[in-house]
């Protein structure tokens, strides 16, 4: 099993045994961190963001902002930064060379070695990463919310979190994912990035990309898989609840719409930046580190509003050498329902453009909210049942995020108690 990740660097886990860590962390300055940072600390520590070993220093941020490369020359598209106000830095007496103890859920989570403390021009960062400095763009808005200083340095997990049900069945670290892929005998596999529950249009995107990925491989033996890689991060009102996303995708395998030996549902933790093409590169990097060989990109991947052309996220791969990314993009147009063909079919094949019926998000949402089971050709009945079931079990009666879900949902993970 290869452990070589993005940039040709080996996947290394930066994780200490909690009991061994206690003596080393007891006297460190404690810094409470918000949930987004906690998620990124966990991703960094397990190697999802290889070759990064921690939060970026200024040279790396400069490289990413100005030329989409780390200081080492490795392709990287989104700044991974740890922000803190100058007031807090001063109040806690933080200086370069220190090690901080990052606290999440009131428990020690990880250490951060303070290699560099720096300022950055946030407007320039936003404009170069997102192609706009409009504060209405959610990625720009996130950038403008950063506190005034950044701390760059390596992180080490000192108290590994426990994933909560139902996520525990779907969270695989890069090393675990690579072992799983080897166990399944997959020589190729394609990532399907998602934040949705799957209708048949999504199902066909996955089938399309599996067929494209399989290509010239022998057919007698299964050597190709689909890895659903659901993104779990900050939720907004109206999003699908996380539990519905993972359990409905898994249902496609469970109920035979994908064979057991070709399909795997998994999750990563990441707060979407909606950076369109730049985020597509980032997603490709993370899935490379998971050991995935191909990545499907559909229409308007990671886009928002009208900031990007629907196929910008395809075209950006034309600007990057194959040697710079160890994953092959699979570019897909739309799948729609055609009443003339009488089937879900592909924009690149179907000639009934005028008659087509698109999988509109608004329409699908409206159908789900009414609880009226749609025809199985557009929505698998088992998937629909699980949406309603998860709404009751996890979503306070709704498959969509509402105020109650935001306030009372079960977190993705729990940081176990660790006495110092």
């Amino acid at each position, binding site marked *: 099993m290869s452990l070589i990740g993005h940039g040709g660097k080996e996947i290394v886990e930066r994780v200490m045994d909690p009991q061994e860590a206690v003596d080393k962390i007891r006297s460190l300055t404690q810094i409470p961190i918000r949930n987004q940072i906690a998620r990124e600390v966990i991703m960094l520590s397990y190697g999802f963001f290889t070759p990064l070993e921690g939060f970026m220093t200024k040279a790396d941020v400069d490289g990413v902002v100005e030329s989409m490369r780390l200081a080492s020359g490795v392709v990287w598209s989104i700044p991974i930064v740890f922000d803190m106000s100058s007031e807090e830095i001063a109040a806690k007496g933080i200086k370069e060379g220190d090690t901080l103890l990052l606290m999440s859920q009131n428990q020690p989570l990880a250490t951060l070695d303070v290699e560099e403390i720096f300022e950055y021009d946030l407007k320039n960062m936003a404009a170069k990463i997102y192609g706009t400095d409009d504060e209405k763009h959610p990625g720009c808005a996130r950038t403008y919310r950063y506190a005034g200083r950044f701390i760059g340095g390596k992180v080490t997990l000192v108290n590994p979190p426990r994933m909560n049900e139902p996520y525990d069945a779907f969270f695989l670290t890069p090393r675990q994912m690579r072992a799983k892929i080897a166990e399944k005998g997959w020589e190729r596999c394609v990532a399907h990035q998602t934040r949705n529950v799957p209708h048949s249009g999504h199902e066909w995107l996955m089938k399309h990309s599996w067929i494209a990925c399989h290509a010239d491989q022998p057919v007698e033996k299964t050597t190709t898989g689909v890895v659903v890689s659901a993104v779990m991060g900050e939720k907004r009102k109206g999003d699908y609840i996380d539990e519905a996303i993972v359990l409905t995708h898994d249902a496609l395998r469970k109920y035979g719409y994908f064979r057991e030996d070709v399909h795997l549902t998994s999750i990563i933790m990441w707060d979407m930046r909606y950076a369109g093409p730049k985020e597509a590169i980032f997603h490709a990097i993370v899935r490379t580190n998971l050991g995935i060989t191909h990545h499907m990109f559909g229409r308007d991947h990671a886009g928002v509003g009208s900031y990007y052309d629907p196929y910008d996220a395809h075209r950006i791969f034309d600007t990057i050498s194959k040697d710079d990314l160890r994953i092959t993009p699979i570019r897909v147009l739309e799948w729609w*329902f055609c009443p003339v063909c009488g089937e879900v079919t592909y924009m690149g094949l179907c000639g009934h453009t005028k008659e087509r*019926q698109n999988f509109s998000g608004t*329409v699908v949402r409206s159908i789900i*909210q009414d*609880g*009226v089971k749609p*025809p199985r050709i*557009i929505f698998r009945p088992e998937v629909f049942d699980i949406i309603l079931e998860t709404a009751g079990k996890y979503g306070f009666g709704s498959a969509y995020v509402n105020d109650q879900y935001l306030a009372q949902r079960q977190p993705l993970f729990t940081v176990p108690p660790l006495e110092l």
Partner: protein
Amino acid sequence: MTHHEETFPINVWINEERFAKLQAVKLGDLTQEVFAGLKVLRVPCTAEQRDKVLAVFPTAKFDSATTKSVEQLPRDVKDKIFDLVVEKASVDIMEEFLAGY
């Protein structure tokens, strides 16, 4: 309400079971097939009724961009609207429906 004036409809999705109920009160023809055989019944609202719906049910939104309809009404509210349509054998029921709120 005449059907010539602008309306701000509530879309009620119609599966086979609901379609049978509409046919029984001779309203089957008012449904439109919109997505892979799934039908929708558009229950008209005046601008005033739309505004009252949005005020009474805070989750509801008027989608002016794509569907031009009142969306995100709770399921039980949509169920009651459908039941009233069947009971009255008419889609012009919003005045009566809203009188209870």
